[in-house]
């Protein structure tokens, strides 16, 4: 049996013998005696043998060599913003990372407090009244917002969504709508922004539960949403704004646009790219919608000694109580990622977030102008953008250009159609890096 000793398994042979004796069975296999023999594995699994840490490091070093991180000029829902060095130190404290959902508030104040901080910060960013304790990512947060609209409207099934939302958000919306029974209708795009005439027309039917608009949109364009909230509310529809979190620091807020719900991905608040996850979806709403909100919510209360304390609250909304009446099945939040965001915003503050946006926007506009100047790109929309923009490639083969850039170590935006590409710049890109990238494009082919 000694070959079954492993660094994660503390049982000695003697322990096992004594424990089996207490239970009254002869062997570990006898613990499974009730299971019909035909259900048990009759052969060993076709898997490699257990590895030591030394071997595991080698495996990962090899895998790491097969990856090539690129100097990033892409966004499209995932942004290469700066992560302050102390954040991974804080989040790796195992008192945080190895805990679970804070069911026992007396020994979970750490988790409860950073979630409360996170909720506070997200409401301040969006201007709305309440935030939940986070969702999986921006796409699923937007899908939950769609289902909230349907639940709040009771008898209306139709939700409108702009074609200018990110494609991955639209795809997840489509999937959830198909199975949940939401009549999802997309409002077409015109010149890079939502076609307002069609939106008005569709709203006019009086059967819309909610309207989902991007901000900024998939091309990085900051859409002018004036009047949409009034139009929605006049038709008893909710307005949802979906977008990345970092720009909320400088752009007109969802509350200022009159939105009822704000959602999107908060990865842009200090969370590493990590090949697409883990990220964190945010979801904020006006207080009248709190009982329709999915996910956990942390609230303030007192303990019997009068300390100000924090607990999971409003649980009557949740899946484990509502069961088949639930309008969301969300159990947990992206706890660790709330801590990322809370620590990030604590360090950056208002001024820092402003500077991040300013540097990103300044770099993006510098790149935009330089790329257009090469004569290889044109701006098809010429609209207001922050740190992300769409250009049309005048050459024949966009793929070849992107491949060429990747070989040279640059991520040349995200291709969105045959000849269009969306670029993004963050505060991590220096002027020199941008110049080098532009040179590369200029000299291609």
């Amino acid at each position, binding site marked *: 049996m000694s070959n079954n000793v492993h660094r994660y398994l503390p049982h000695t042979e003697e322990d096992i013998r004594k424990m089996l004796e*207490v239970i009254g069975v002869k062997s570990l296999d006898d613990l499974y005696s009730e299971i019909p023999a035909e259900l048990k594995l009759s052969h060993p699994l076709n898997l490699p043998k257990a590895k030591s840490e030394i071997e595991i490091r080698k495996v990962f070093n090899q895998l790491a060599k097969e990856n090539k991180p690129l100097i990033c000029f892409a966004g499209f829902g995932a942004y290469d913003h700066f992560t302050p060095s102390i954040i991974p130190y804080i989040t790796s404290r195992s008192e945080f990372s190895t805990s679970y959902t804070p069911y026992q508030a*007396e020994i979970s104040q750490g*988790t409860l*407090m950073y979630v409360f901080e996170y909720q506070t910060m997200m409401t301040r960013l969006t201007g709305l009244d309440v935030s939940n304790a986070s969702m999986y990512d921006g796409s699923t947060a937007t899908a939950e917002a769609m289902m909230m609209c349907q639940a709040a409207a009771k008898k209306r099934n139709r939700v409108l969504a702009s074609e200018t939302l990110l494609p991955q958000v639209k795809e997840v919306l489509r999937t959830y709508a198909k199975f949940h029974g939401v009549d999802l209708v997309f409002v077409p795009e015109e010149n890079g922004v939502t076609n307002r005439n069609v939106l008005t027309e569709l709203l006019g039917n009086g059967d819309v539960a909610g309207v989902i608009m991007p901000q900024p949109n998939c091309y990085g364009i900051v859409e002018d949403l004036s009047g949409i909230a009034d139009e929605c509310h006049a038709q008893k529809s909710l307005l949802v704004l979906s977008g990345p979190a970092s720009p909320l620091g400088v752009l007109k807020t969802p509350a*200022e646009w009159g939105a009822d719900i704000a959602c999107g991905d908060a990865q842009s608040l200090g969370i590493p790219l990590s090949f697409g996850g883990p990220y964190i979806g945010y979801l904020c709403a006006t207080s009248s919608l709190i009982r329709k909100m999915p996910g956990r919510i942390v609230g303030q209360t007192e303990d*019997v000694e009068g300390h*100000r304390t924090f607990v999971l*609250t409003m649980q009557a909304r949740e899946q484990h109580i509502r*069961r088949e009446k639930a309008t969301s099945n969300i159990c947990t939040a992206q706890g660790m990622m709330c801590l990322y965001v809370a620590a990030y915003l604590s*360090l950056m503050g208002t001024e820092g977030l402003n500077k991040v946006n300013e540097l990103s926007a300044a770099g993006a506009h510098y790149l935009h102008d330089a790329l257009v100047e090469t004569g290889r790109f044109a701006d098809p929309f010429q609209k207001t953008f922050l740190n992300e923009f769409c250009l049309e490639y005048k050459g024949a083969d966009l793929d070849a250009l992107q491949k060429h850039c990747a070989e040279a170590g640059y991520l040349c935006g995200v291709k969105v159609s045959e000849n269009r590409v969306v670029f993004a710049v963050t505060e991590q890109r220096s002027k020199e890096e941008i110049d080098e990238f532009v040179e590369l494009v200029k000299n291609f082919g």
Partner: protein
Amino acid sequence: MNKVFYGKLIFECSSTGRRGYDLPENTFGKSLNDFIPATLQRQATLVLPEADEQTVARHYTNMSNNNFGVDTGFYPLGSCTMKYNPKINEEVAAHPAFTALHPAQPAETVQGALHLYDEVQRTLAEIAGMSAFTLNPYAGAHGELTGLMVIRSYHMSRGDEKRTKIIVPDSAHGTNPASAAVCGLQIVEVKSTPEGTIDVEALKPLLNDEVAGMMMTNPNTLGIFETKIPEIARLVHECGGLMYYDGANLNPMLGVCRPGDMGFDVMHINLHKTFSTPHGGGGPGSGPVGVRKGLEQFLPNPRVRKNDDGTYGVSSEPTALGSVSSFLGNYGIIIRAYAYLLSIGGDILPMVGKLSVLNANYVKEILKEYYQLPIDGLCKHEFVFDGLRPEFGGDHHDESHVTTLDVAKRILDYGFHAPTIYFPLLFHEALMIEPTETESKDTLDSFIEVLKNIAIEARDERDKVKNAPLTTPVRRNDDVKAVKDAIFVYNA
């Protein structure tokens, strides 16, 4: 864990004019006003903390000292599989060659990442006895929803639109019916027998051509193996439905018995339970979904595949149910699970399952003298007590009897996390204990000692238990006040 309550919020550590960051100078010579017209700019003042780096570091360190994790102590939270989270997992997941990858990078530049993803897909398929897996779902509940979407897609692909009912046992996690409801299915509940397993006779009349499938865990939420699973699977398949396996309780089955061999068609696995990734205060988790042969085409987009030339690629299929995530799931969590799979290997894997079962039965056998064990016999990785025995203060007819909540709170005083309480709903005073295989006999013995003590206190010194916890950073909280006052954000 520090017994003194720290209690401050970051907003209360803030001082106007302090700064916790430095950024490069703006050498572009332009500012925000040059790009964004005032009408599109934020008007409301944004108030965020202003703190230097050390203040932030100390604040969160102090807060962490009021938190309890698996590294702090024994965490027998039933149904959550709170096993040890190995540190090598963290080390490899933090490698910049993974963390710096943008999800839109060309496949040629992320071969290592895709290779790893594919290895995990294949390894899980082998362990579970399934044909293929997707790792895109973000959590157990998300996996359930995705799995149910697979089932509905399968029926829709055959033009069988009327199958909109799903059978769920009354002992199921609340998430099962909730996921089914979100997926647009109607829930039909099947009763349990007094022995705690599915009542096959009660199941039979529920089966008809409107049934899309049935959701089960095995072992079930009482920790009991459903020995009639072959018959149940046969009945459901005969009526045209599919079998869904909720992988919440997969741990004791590792290397012993596979869901695929039990007759399940679709399933999810919780990487944060069975495969040792940290629970993170509630997430991020990961809920991969597996399917048997013939259902692969319904798995969500995007899919990671190994090409014929040995390279890896990402593709989207028109037959897929759609997509359920922005990119390829919680990739950083998948890396951790891979490190664990390599650490455990095929040879040690069965010991993981067996020792989890050994631990649970050991604790149960000793403590059943003190706590009400509603269903006797071998359990798997966990078991459920229905509160204290009547002679130890648990007599329901006594108005001031000691409840499961009291016991749970008293456990905190002794330096352990409490088990899951008031679930499953089959019992009024449910106390659900899952020790996991990474706990030593010494730890279990101390826990057993503590639970015995509490039973004796409940009999002899009831107030001690009723007022617990007494030694934690904060005491019992007013849950009603939290709902009534409804304070969800900080206001100075």
